């Protein structure tokens, strides 16, 4: 029988990472909120899901990714275009006080939105979660080479998009 689930502890330790990943992946704040709630409700209903889990963060990120994929599939193609328009303006980064840095962050947020979702997920997990390619591959359920190549293609696109701005602030 699994131990009682400490939902507060899980939320306080992992909600920030889950929020950042889901916001960057879905590009939609309302969907992010719904998915975050759905994730913790699912854990509360089935606390045995965490039995034997060694890396809670990786497990929760995988769960979040699966829930996000399910949401996108439920939405279908009809709303995909709406999300693409909304994704261009959503801010996934903290606004900066310094104007140049602020412009860079805004451009980065837009550039991330222009990446395909599968590349965006890998780039986020590599840059902001610091996971290895092995961990990313296991989390997303993809081959190791696929994880590495998606990161390389995604980073190349960001570099091409952000080069002028980065050279100014460097």
């Amino acid at each position, binding site marked *: 029988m699994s131990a009682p689930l400490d939902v507060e502890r899980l939320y306080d330790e992992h909600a920030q990472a889950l929020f950042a990943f889901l916001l960057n992946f879905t590009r939609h704040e309302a969907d992010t909120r719904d998915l975050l709630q759905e994730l913790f*409700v699912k854990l509360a209903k089935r606390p045995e899901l965490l039995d034997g889990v060694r890396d809670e963060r990786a497990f929760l990120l995988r769960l979040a990714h699966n829930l996000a994929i399910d949401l996108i599939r439920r939405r279908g193609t009809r709303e995909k275009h709406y999300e693409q328009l909304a994704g261009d303006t959503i801010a*996934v980064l903290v606004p900066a006080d310094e104007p140049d840095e602020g412009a860079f962050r805004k451009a980065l947020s837009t550039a991330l939105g222009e990446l395909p979702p599968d590349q965006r997920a890998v780039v986020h997990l590599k840059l902001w979660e610091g996971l290895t390619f092995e961990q990313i591959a296991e989390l997303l359920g993809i081959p190791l080479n696929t994880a590495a190549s998606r990161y390389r293609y995604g980073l190349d696109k960001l570099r091409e998009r952000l080069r002028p701005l980065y050279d100014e602030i460097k």
Partner: protein
Amino acid sequence: MNPDDLEKHLRSQPMRQVPPQWRADILSAARQASPSEHAPRTTHHVPRSPSLFSTLLWPHPTAWAGLAAIWLLILGFNLATGPSVPLLAKRASPTAPQVLMAFQEQERLLSELLGPRETPVAERPKPAQPRPRSELRRRLLMA
């Protein structure tokens, strides 16, 4: 531009913080969904005095249920096998008076058909004994 520098700079960009007002709502939803929330609350449960029935079953109601099941099985077996044996015996061997009456009726019919016949010196009729069917048939044919 050094690719490593850009990568480092990207990594240092802070992601937005989860809105603090979400915490209470999400945790509330999670608590309501928790299985422990649906269990009967013992704090509001007023214990009733044990009934005579529960007193008789205590402390092993399972054992009593097993014993009752065994008794039901035995009863069912008896009902399934018991009545057929004497019933079959009853059907297989009709009573002797019935056989005697049937035989006397046949004698009367034959005498009507064949007419009167010399009867031997009357003997005291012996009480009819159940005979095998083949013997009875033979006697009837000979009559």
